[in-house]
Each structure stands twice: as C-alpha cells, then as structure tokens.
C-alpha cells in the first residue's frame, strides 16, 4: 500500500469539502484578523508618517509618504549597528545555546541514568516556563554592581575584584539570558531523536567496542541531521523576532544601542518612547524588514524540509 508517496495535485476534480472548511474556519478567521490584515496594514503604515502627533486609527487619514521611511532607515547612522547587533546576537545565541547547548544537554542527559536525565531536562525547561519579568529580575540582580550583585558577591568571596557585569559584559549576559531559555526547545527535539535511534544500532556499536565519543560521532550525530536542521532554522527565526527578554533586561542599552536588536527597534520606535511622540510609520518600516526576512526564511525552510513529504495525502476521501 504505497499510495501515500505521491503528493501531486490530483487530476480528478474535488468538490469543496465544507466539513473541512468548517473545521478550519475559526483558525482561518483569526489568521486573517491577526496575521494577514496586520501584515498588509504594517506595510501601508510603513509608508505613512504616522506618529503620536498625527495619530489616527483611520487608515484613510494617514499621510502617504511613499518610501521615505525606508530612505531614513537605510541612512540611519545606527541601523547598521543594530543590524550587526542582531546578526551577532542570533548567531552566537543560536550556535552556543539554542543548537549547540541544546545538543550537548540532550547528549549528556541521554548518557546518564534515565531518571536523572529526565530530571535535568525538566530543570532546563524551567526558564521557558518562568514569567519573563521574574526571570529578568533574577538576572538583573545576578549582574548588579556590588553590594547587590550576586556574581560580584561570589567574585568577592573568591578574591577577584569587582566586575561591571551589567555594563562591560552586558552582551555576554544578554546572550546567556536568552540562550538559557532557548536551550529547551532543541533539547526536547534532540532528545526524542536520540531516543528514537534504534536500540539495535546502539547495541551493535557497543558490541563493536566503541567509546561514548565514537558512538556520538558515528552513530548519533549522522542520524540527527534532520532535527539539527529543523532546530537551527526554527530557532533562527525565533531569535530574530523575539525581544521581550532584551526589552526587560537592558532595553537595548546601556550604551549607544549597545544591545539593541532589530525587532526591539521596531517596538521602541512605535510603541515605547521615553519622550512621547512615537514614530509609528518609521517603526513599521523596521517591522516590515523583519516580516520580509521572516517570510523569505520560512519559504526557504519549506524547501529544505521537503514540504512534499509533509503533505502526505489523507487516507480518507471526501464523499
């Protein structure tokens, strides 16, 4: 029965399946309301000069100014800095934590006592479950100056001097803060991939007398190609677009856009401005850039992920 391999469009005409559409309708409505319409709106707003001073929710009353916001964006002296900040942040967090760290944690927990492994994985899940506000509070205190900072207190006890963690080493901690949350996603996927590796293969390699490292190198990793790719791509986008923790932790500072990332800029410009007068139009231009990057990457991933195999034909037909 290998009729499920082909996913080509069928030639026989299909009647509209009202049941299926009924099942999908609620989600479709929400998607239109909160993805499609906003995506179109944000593109339009990015071509207006909407700001607090001429704020209106009536699309018709916004002043269309064409691509002016994009011109401003591309000549913004800090756009370049923010762009590379984002690249740096995504690359480092991704490689050291969301993928690399996740893989290490998954491998380590797979090679110890089953219950202990489960326990450690559960612990690693905690940061993702914590409220960002409390989680960040914890980190703010961690890196604070003496006498409040936890790390500085430990450094003091160990005989090292005071370190300005929250200013001079802030990137390290921005990455840590996000990376520690980020590990769990990859960890879970890698773990289930490792566990699904057939016991026979593992036993066979054990009989062959391979060491743990050899087993990882020759048995586990080659079988992990797919999950690795998946986590890599999915987490790239997550990191690219999430900014809540940075907002709460450094709010892009403390120096000149020191830890500002692109998505945060969109937020800052439009929805958070210390002196009032938020620039909605300009902020939207930042958002649009991300939206475009997101869609392009997502389509790219669809190709990588062999989308065709994903859409195996349903084995019940609509009569």
């Amino acid at each position: 029965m290998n009729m499920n391999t082909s996913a080509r469009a069928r030639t026989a005409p299909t009647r509209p399946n009202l049941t299926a559409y009924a099942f999908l309708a609620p989600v479709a409505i929400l998607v239109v309301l909160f993805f499609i319409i906003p995506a179109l709106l944000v593109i339009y707003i990015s071509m207006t000069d909407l700001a607090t001073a001429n704020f209106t929710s009536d699309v018709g009353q916004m002043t269309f100014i064409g691509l002016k916001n994009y011109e401003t964006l591309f000549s913004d002296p800090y756009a370049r800095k923010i762009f590379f900040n984002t690249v740096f942040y995504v690359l480092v967090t991704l490689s050291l934590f969301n993928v690399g760290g996740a893989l290490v944690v998954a491998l380590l927990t797979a090679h110890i006592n089953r219950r202990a492994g489960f326990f450690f994985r559960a612990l690693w899940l905690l940061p993702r479950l914590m409220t960002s506000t409390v989680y960040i509070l914890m980190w703010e205190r961690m890196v604070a100056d003496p006498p409040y900072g936890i790390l500085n207190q430990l450094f003091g006890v160990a005989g090292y001097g005071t370190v300005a963690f929250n200013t001079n080493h802030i990137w390290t901690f921005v990455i840590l803060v996000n990376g520690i949350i980020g590990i769990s996603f990859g960890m879970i996927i890698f773990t289930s991939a490792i566990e699904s590796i057939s016991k026979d293969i593992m036993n066979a390699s054990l009989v062959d007398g391979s060491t743990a490292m050899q087993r990882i190198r020759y048995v586990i990793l080659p079988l992990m190609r797919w999950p690795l790719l998946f986590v890599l791509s999915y987490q790239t986008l997550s990191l690219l677009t999430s900014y809540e923790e940075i907002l709460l932790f450094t709010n892009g500072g403390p120096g000149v856009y020191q830890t500002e990332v692109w998505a945060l800029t969109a937020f800052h410009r439009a929805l958070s401005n210390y002196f009032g007068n938020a620039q909605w139009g300009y902020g939207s231009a930042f958002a649009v850039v991300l939206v475009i990057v997101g869609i392009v990457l997502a389509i790219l991933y669809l190709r990588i992920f062999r989308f065709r195999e994903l859409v195996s034909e349903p084995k019940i037909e609509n009569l």
Partner: protein
Amino acid sequence: MQVDIQNLTKKFGDVTAVADVSLDIRDGEFVAFLGPSGCGKTTTLLMLAGIYKPTDGTITFGERIVNLVPPRERNIGMVFQSYALYPHMTVFGNIAYPLKLKNVSRADQQERVKRVADVMGIGELLDRKPAQLSGGQQQRVALGRALVKEPDILLFDEPLSNLDARLRLTMRAEIKALQKRLGITSVYVTHDQVEALTMADRIAVMNKGRLEAYATPEDLYDHPRTTFIANFVGNPPINMVDVELAQENGQVVARCAAFTVPLDSERVRKAVAHGRKLTMGIRAEDITLGDDAALTGEVYAVEPLGREDMLDVRIGAESFFALATPQQRMRAGDRIGLHIDAERLQFFDPATGKSVLWE
C-alpha cells in the same frame, strides 16, 4: 445485498492503484480478494466502504449507485487488520458505538450488544478495555462491532493476519460459519491463499491493480488463467519450467536445458497446437516419486511439514518442489525418479503469461 462493480479505477496522483476492475457479488456470497501486498485489493475494499472515492467506474449496492455515498449511509460492517478498536471505550462501548450513532435506545443497545457478544463468546468481557484483551478477543470484539448493526455487507481487511496460527484456524471456521448462518454478503481481503481458498465462494485474484481472475476456488486451482494465478494459488508454489515442446517419434517431448521428458495427454496436445515454446507448470502434488521414471533428480533439501515432506529436487539447473511421505525418509543427496502426471500439467504463453489451455 448484491454488489456490482463496473470498470472500477482508482488513481492516486500518477499511481494507478486499481485499474478497470469489474465484478459482481451475489447476495449472501462470500468473496475473497486475493493478491500480494500493493495489488489494490484493500483499495478496492475501501472504495466499497466509502473511504475512497472511485476515480472511474461505478459501485452498485443492490439498485443504488453508491460512488458518492458516505460510509455511514452504506450500512456496512468492517473488520480491520489492526482491529481498530477504540482504546478509550470498553468492549461494550465499542460494540454499542454503531448503535449509539443510530440513536438506538439504551435498552435496545444493551440487548443487542449482549446478543452479539454472546454469539461471539465475549459476554463476560463487556466491561474491559481493549488493552486488557488478547488478540483473539479483540478480533471477536471487532467482529461483534461490525455485526451489531446488522449490516448489508461485511468487509474484512486481512482480519486474521495478526493472530497466531492456531487461532487463525479457529477464527477462519467461525467467520465462515457465521457468515453462512447470517447470510450477509461479505468481501474478504487477504494475501493468504489458504484463507481465500477455504473460506470464499469466489475469489478475485488481483495483481498490480488489475483483476487477474474471478472464479471459485476449485476453478482457480485447476484452471489457472495466468502464470500469476498459478504461482499465487497453491502451496507449495507450482513448479514452472520454460520448455520447448517437440514431436519425437510420434510422441510429444518437453525439452529444456536440463532434461528432456516425453509427455502425453490431451492438454499437452492442446498446448502443442498453440506453439512450441511454452512455460510448463507442474504442481508438486502431481509429481510422484518412483524409481522407474523418465526423469531423475537429486534431492537438494528436505523440508518436513509434518504430514508430508517437501522436497527441493534439482535436475540440472532446474529446481522442482515435490512431496514425499515422511515414511519415504528422503535425505538430501538422494537420487530419485520423478513421475509427472501429464493430465494435470498447465501451459502458459511465456510472452503474455496467459494460459494456453483456459480462456
């Protein structure tokens, strides 16, 4: 309920799963669909069930064309290979489910489930969950669920293949007896020829989506229309040799690289009329062992089957299955003579695989 299938075709994209199948099933008849996996028999069954929609052709239940009738309006019962019991319901819940869907009153549900369960011998299991049942019990529950709504047609999708050999034998007999008693038109999909041969009134042999033959078990066995049927029906499998038939001294001889053997029968003569190069089929039970035979071969392997021994006899490069009684005590390496019953031979056109004896 009689079923009529006309020019039934099913395509999945470019792949044709079922091609132009036509057959009719009489009211109360037990029909088996037989074929190797991937031959389209299950697809055909699922089209009968209303799970798949035919790409072409028609399916008629009684007078009604049901091509586009959803499963719940077909009044069929079906037993799956995996049993497909609902794990979150009790046995009672499983059997009663079709009745519940028909809005049968609670009291009636109770009564009908009880009746079916008693028939199936699972009356004491009604409170259990499927996970607590043995394979055979699950099978009975599945059958009970299919029967409880008194379907017009019963569909079986390899229902016995997950059971152990002994249980399979019992269930085979039970299903057959039950079907005869209730007189429900049944379609039974299997790749096990023994099941098909022992249970079915008629067998539809399918191969690569096509209907190879549709006949009674005896007819299929004795008059295989194609090499595929001959090969597929019968255990041990029929011996096939590519031979050249020739007239020698007024006698027909079959000649191949390994041997030459004189043959004489009506069938042989009919075959000769068709051509000289043919595929000759000899069933193992039509070979008798004896010392004064025209053919001698060497026993290559002996496979004791209990009641008899199956021999793999080699003549040159050709290999034949033959049967011997255990008392004959054949051993590998023994040289024996082979007697071929020329009246039981089958001949096929090697190019088309079609029988030259039967249409």
